[in-house]
């Protein structure tokens, strides 16, 4: 009896540094556990093989490719316009951003000038989509830590953004709105007012979300000091986007390699400062995204104010043949750098199209930082990278 009591006391005294503490106490037999591809806490179909000793992970082997659809091969078989709908399906949570990056790559390859109004519309759409995907992230991060409410709230606000997209292009998820040389249609009547109103509403709601989730003590206890990603490791693994900024690196392609009309708009780049734990922990990565929503609201408001009149689409032939050559164009997506490497051999189809995505590299940095972690913390770590599987597998 007394011995049992002692054990119980010990187990309750282990609070935060359980991983290192328990590793000393118990050394058992290592076993391999399959986590996925169908698992309650996965972001889609990702299989992680965990080598564990009890609750402690000693190694992680991510198995990807369960959603490999061969987009790069499909691109070679279609002409440049026809591939646009497939870019929606690279990262379906931020389809507008993928459209934008692809359109930019082909425009650079074929030297197409885009009208100013189209550029502004593109930025408005891309930033609204960034807000939408970060709202989903807030919800799933809540789910990962055991909170059900945030996802309902996140989706509620996201639906408002989808309404805006739907009145513009008729789709809720896979928009195919941007075209090579502009966008498919002009903004509908009432869009600008509705978008402004949405920005006002969301700004108030963000305060509410931060009170509800971000600064919730239970949430902070689960997130702070968990899954720390040092800056040099992040750069070595090619981690980009909010995950890199969470590690304290001020790096954003919208500022560092400006494209579209971002140089004309004012915004800040939030970075992780380790306010509540260490720099580069899960809470930092989470908070960078929440602060990015604020900045995106700023960008949308400015772009709506500055929206010039004019055409929304340059004249581009249905089938056009860019001159021989190759480009590598990258854009800042909600999940990191989305790069398109396009090789043209002078025909109507791309000779080779490589899609470099943020999630692919971000996921590759998860195994080295997961050693010695508990399984429950691993779920948090993986969740805080906000990977989307079709972006990894393509």
């Amino acid at each position, binding site marked *: 009896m007394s011995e049992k009591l002692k054990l119980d006391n010990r187990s309750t005294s282990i609070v935060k540094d359980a991983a290192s503490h328990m590793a000393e106490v118990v050394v058992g037999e290592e076993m391999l556990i399959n986590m996925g591809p169908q698992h309650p806490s996965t972001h889609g179909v990702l299989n992680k093989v965990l080598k564990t000793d009890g609750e402690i992970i000693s190694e992680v082997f991510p198995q990807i*490719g369960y959603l490999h659809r061969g987009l790069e*091969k499909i691109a070679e078989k279609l002409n440049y316009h026809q591939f646009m709908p497939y870019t929606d399906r690279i990262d379906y949570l931020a389809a507008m951003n993928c459209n934008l990056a692809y359109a930019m790559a082909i425009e650079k390859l074929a030297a197409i000038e885009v009208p100013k109004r189209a550029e502004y519309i593109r930025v408005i759409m891309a930033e609204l989509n960034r807000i939408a995907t970060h709202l989903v992230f807030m919800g799933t991060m809540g789910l990962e830590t055991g909170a059900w409410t945030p996802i309902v709230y996140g989706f509620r606000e996201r639906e408002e953004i989808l309404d805006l997209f739907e009145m513009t292009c008729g789709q809720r998820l896979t928009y195919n709105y941007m075209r090579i040389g502009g966008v498919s249609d002009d903004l509908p009547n009432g869009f600008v007012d509705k978008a402004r109103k949405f920005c006002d509403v969301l700004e108030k709601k963000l305060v509410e979300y931060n009170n509800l989730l971000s600064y919730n003590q239970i949430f902070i206890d689960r997130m702070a000091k968990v899954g720390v990603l040092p800056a040099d490791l992040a*750069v*070595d693994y*090619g981690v980009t986007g909010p995950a890199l900024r969470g590690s304290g690196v001020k790096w954003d392609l919208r500022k*560092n390699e400006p494209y579209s009309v971002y140089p004309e708009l004012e915004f800040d780049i939030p970075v992780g400062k380790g306010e509540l734990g260490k720099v580069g922990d899960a809470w930092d990565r989470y908070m960078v995204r929440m602060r990015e929503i604020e900045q995106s609201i700023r960008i949308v408001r400015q772009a709506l104010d500055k929206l010039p009149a004019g055409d929304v689409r340059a004249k581009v032939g249905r089938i056009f043949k860019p001159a021989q050559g*190759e480009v*590598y164009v990258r854009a800042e997506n909600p999940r990191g750098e989305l790069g398109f490497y396009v090789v043209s051999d002078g025909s109507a189809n791309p000779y080779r199209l490589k899609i*470099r995505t943020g999630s692919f590299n971000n996921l590759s940095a998860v195994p080295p930082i997961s050693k010695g972690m508990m399984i429950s913390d691993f779920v948090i770590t993986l969740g805080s990278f906000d990977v989307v599987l079709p972006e990894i597998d393509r």
Partner: protein
Amino acid sequence: MTANVIFEKLRARFGEGIEFQDNSLLPFIKVRPDSIRKVADILRNNPDLGFDSLMCLTAVDNPANFTIVYFLFSMKHQHKVTLKVETPKDNPNVPTVEKIWSAANWFEREVYDLFGVKFDGHSNLVRIMLPDDWEGYPLRKDYQYPATYRGLPL
């Protein structure tokens, strides 16, 4: 630093065996397969060059050969450079740069999976996207789609 200046610096350190092509959209430096690891080492560790990030690594199936393309970037100096390595079609083989940039590990596995290019010295060169028992390398231009996979029509 522009690609031109980087090339001059590299040639001063490395000598002959590399060539520069000033393609207006994407200037690149062509490197022989046997010297890629040395070049990569200089690019990464020379403080003036400081290419600490491998943005992207991929391959192109050209009619004459496979071309491996490396997109490098320096966070510190904010400059970038593209490297190209050509390898013959009958026995595609390139030394790995996994030890120099960790990001190369998965990139090289992907190229191996989809193009069948082998990377010498890679720690875990197995298929990453497709199942292990898949036959052929789909991104090759001469790839024939199989009729079935495990009894299911393709």
